[in-house]
């Protein structure tokens, strides 16, 4: 392959951008910061495109070794272990590469407009470029260790960006929450890696999978591969916000909206799906682990979707929707349809990135307001944003022929083949998804504007002046923000077409191969039937949302009061945060307070140090009297010492 020697440049370019902006950005002009922040990821995207155009399945997977990293043991012996700075390119990482660099670049462009008034403009782009570096390291890694470096790195970038407005208390603690919850998942991931090293002696994808491949399917009961699979899934649960570790993602909406779009919708949160798909060789041989993945996925999809119905913060709705859609991807992985999961990952990156950016544009338009109850009627004020949001909503709701329809349908179909129960829950979730997404759309764009309106209509144009946020009429975002929206809208429109006739799945076939359980290709009628039902469900959700939020807007309140305490539970996110706080956080804090702080830290560590100092002082208090400064007392000490010495010598002499 001629083009691939540049593969290592793809992650390195954003790193260079981050370094330049990080070190020099404070003193550079905003224009220079913008240029650097856009050029480096843009170049990475261009390179990725170049590689994609020259990609040929014949030479995949392609490994590019940049440098040695860890070498231990000696060649040929079982203790030989290596992990290198090497990049791995196959169909799977190519898809991820295009999604991450493409969507990432668009969001960088959008951020130029969205963050233009922020005093820490350069810092934002430094973090954003740093995130790109780590994310690209993650997806291009040739071994689990490099992947883990990227994995932790995106966690760091996520922490920095969630807490970007760190003077706000809630943002700072949301960042911490994300980081800590992710640590729990990483713990499982790490132990999974240790097991892999222990039993396969390598972390290299090629080596590990070559050693796993001859092992049989663990159909009789859980074994090594099941354990590894479940531990890897624990890691994926943390990063991809699945039950029980999803709690950080809704809070992560404290970050700037482009961050929510890039990290917490399009790219980072899909790392777990990518990791599971990458480890498909292991999972395929561990049916129990696969079942765990599928069950976690279905439950998360349904659970998060129901919470999404009741949220009023526009970004929170999208956050729960993200959790729910990630659940879909895990369902796909769990039923062995990895390519369907990756397909949904890709389309989701398009429409969810678009939804978040559109939401950002809405928030921008109404001057920082995020509560949908205070919006409404925006479609006349911001028609472009409205159009793209409409496309994205239709796409996520699964209305044909938009992107979400193809990928969701493929997942549901595969889920039905594996177990109709998955399909039932998945279809219900699809209905709920369609409902809450159109609810968002109707609440935001239909009806009358309920926000603060200071100016009368004649002064509408004055409100367009920059820095005038929060006053006057809602205004459309600048072109630099709208252009990425339009590109993503186009992708949401046509991005699903690659899935026709399972074309996308066939492209990924060299990676995932034929799934061991024979897929019944002949069930064409069932497929059509399922497709019909899911389309019906999508429109059903739309219709219900229209009835409740446009034609009869008094109904939702009636329904919610009639549901009583159940509704309260859903509004309060099933009290999961409170339960976690009671079950884990409070015991930990209390234990740390009473045992670790009062007990260990103060009683053991502090006291031992203080006692050592105290006893030293007491002893020296006595001894210092020898040093009186009085010459004759010194003489006395010398004489006494000499006397003792002589007495000792005499005593020794007598004893002999």
């Amino acid at each position: 392959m001629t083009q691939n020697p540049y593969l290592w440049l793809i992650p390195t370019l954003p790193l260079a951008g981050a370094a330049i902006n990080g070190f020099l950005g404070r003193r550079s002009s905003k224009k220079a910061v913008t240029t650097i922040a856009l050029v480096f990821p843009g170049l990475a995207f261009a390179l990725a495109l170049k590689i994609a155009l020259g990609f040929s399945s014949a030479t995949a997977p392609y490994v590019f070794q940049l440098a040695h990293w860890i070498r231990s043991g000696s060649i040929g012996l079982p203790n030989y272990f290596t992990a290198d700075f090497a990049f791995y390119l196959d169909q799977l990482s190519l898809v991820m590469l295009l999604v991450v660099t493409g969507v990432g670049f668009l969001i960088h462009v959008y951020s130029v407009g969205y963050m233009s008034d922020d005093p820490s403009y350069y810092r934002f782009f430094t973090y954003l470029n740093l995130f790109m570096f780590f994310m690209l390291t993650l997806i291009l890694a040739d071994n689990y260790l490099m992947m883990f470096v990227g994995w932790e790195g995106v966690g760091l970038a996520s922490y920095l960006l969630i807490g970007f407005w760190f003077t706000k208390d809630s943002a700072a603690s949301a960042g911490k929450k994300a980081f800590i919850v992710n640590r729990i998942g990483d713990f499982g991931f790490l132990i999974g890696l240790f097991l892999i090293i222990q039993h396969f002696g390598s972390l290299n994808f090629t080596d590990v999978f070559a050693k796993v491949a001859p092992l049989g399917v663990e159909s009789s009961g859980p074994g090594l591969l099941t354990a590894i699979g479940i531990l890897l899934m624990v890691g994926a649960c943390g990063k991809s916000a699945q039950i029980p570790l999803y709690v950080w993602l809704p809070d992560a909406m404290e970050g700037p909206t482009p961050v929510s779009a890039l990290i917490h919708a399009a790219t980072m949160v899909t790392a777990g799906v990518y990791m599971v798909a990458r480890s498909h060789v292991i999972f395929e041989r561990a049916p129990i682990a696969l079942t765990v993945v599928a069950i976690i996925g279905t439950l998360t999809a349904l659970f998060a979707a129901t919470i999404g119905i009741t949220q009023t913060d526009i970004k929170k709705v999208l956050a729960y929707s993200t959790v729910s859609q990630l659940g879909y991807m895990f369902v796909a992985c769990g039923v062995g349809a990895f390519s369907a999961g990756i397909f949904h990952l890709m389309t989701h990156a398009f429409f969810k990135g678009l939804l978040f950016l559109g939401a950002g544009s809405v928030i921008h338009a109404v001057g920082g307001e995020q509560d949908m109850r205070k919006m409404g009627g925006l479609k006349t004020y911001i028609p472009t944003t409205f159009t793209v949001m409409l496309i994205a909503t239709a796409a996520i709701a699964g209305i044909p022929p938009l992107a979400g329809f193809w990928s969701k349908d493929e997942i549901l179909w595969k889920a039905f083949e594996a177990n109709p129960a998955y399909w039932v829950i998945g279809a219900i979730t699809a209905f709920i998804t369609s409902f809450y997404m159109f609810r968002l759309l109707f609440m935001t764009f239909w009806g009358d504007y309920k926000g603060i309106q200071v100016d009368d209509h004649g002064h509408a144009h004055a409100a367009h002046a920059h820095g005038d946020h929060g006053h006057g009429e809602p205004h459309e975002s600048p072109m630099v923000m709208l252009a990425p929206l339009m590109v993503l809208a186009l992708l949401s429109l046509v991005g699903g077409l690659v899935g026709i006739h399972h074309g996308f799945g066939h492209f990924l076939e060299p990676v995932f191969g034929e799934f061991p359980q024979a897929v019944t290709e002949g069930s064409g009628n069932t497929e059509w039937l399922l497709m019909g039902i899911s389309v019906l469900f999508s429109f059903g959700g739309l219709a219900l949302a229209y009835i409740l939020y446009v034609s009869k807007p008094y109904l939702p309140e009636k329904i919610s009061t009639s549901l009583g305490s159940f509704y309260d539970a859903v509004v309060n996110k099933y009290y999961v945060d409170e339960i976690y706080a009671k079950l884990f956080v409070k015991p930990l804090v209390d234990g740390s307070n009473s045992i670790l702080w009062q007990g260990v830290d103060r009683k053991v560590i502090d006291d031992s140090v203080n006692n050592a100092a105290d006893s030293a002082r007491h002893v020296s208090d006595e001894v210092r009297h020898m040093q009186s400064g009085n010459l004759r007392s010194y003489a006395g000490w010398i004489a006494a010492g000499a006397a003792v010495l002589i007495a000792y010598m005499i005593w020794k002499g007598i004893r002999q």
Partner: protein
Amino acid sequence: MVPLSYYLVLSGILFACGVTGFLIKRNIITIFMSIELMLNGVNLSFVAFAAHWHTLSGQVFVFFVMVVAAAEAAVGLAIIISVYRTRETLNVDQVNLLKL
């Protein structure tokens, strides 16, 4: 010939006188003289042993002691003069601070 023990007893008495003077006297000059007395008590035992064993090493050692004692006297007296100039006293009980 005077037996060795006589010399040693005399040497011990001289040394003991020196120690006593060193401990009880307050005047720096007197303390200084007591030190000389102790040194010479020891010197006496050196030469006594040297004569008794018919070796020269003891006598050579005494010369060394005398040289050191002379040097010590020179330095010591200089310090004493300096002390007297600055503090106008030679009572060691009043000279107990390094810094004025």
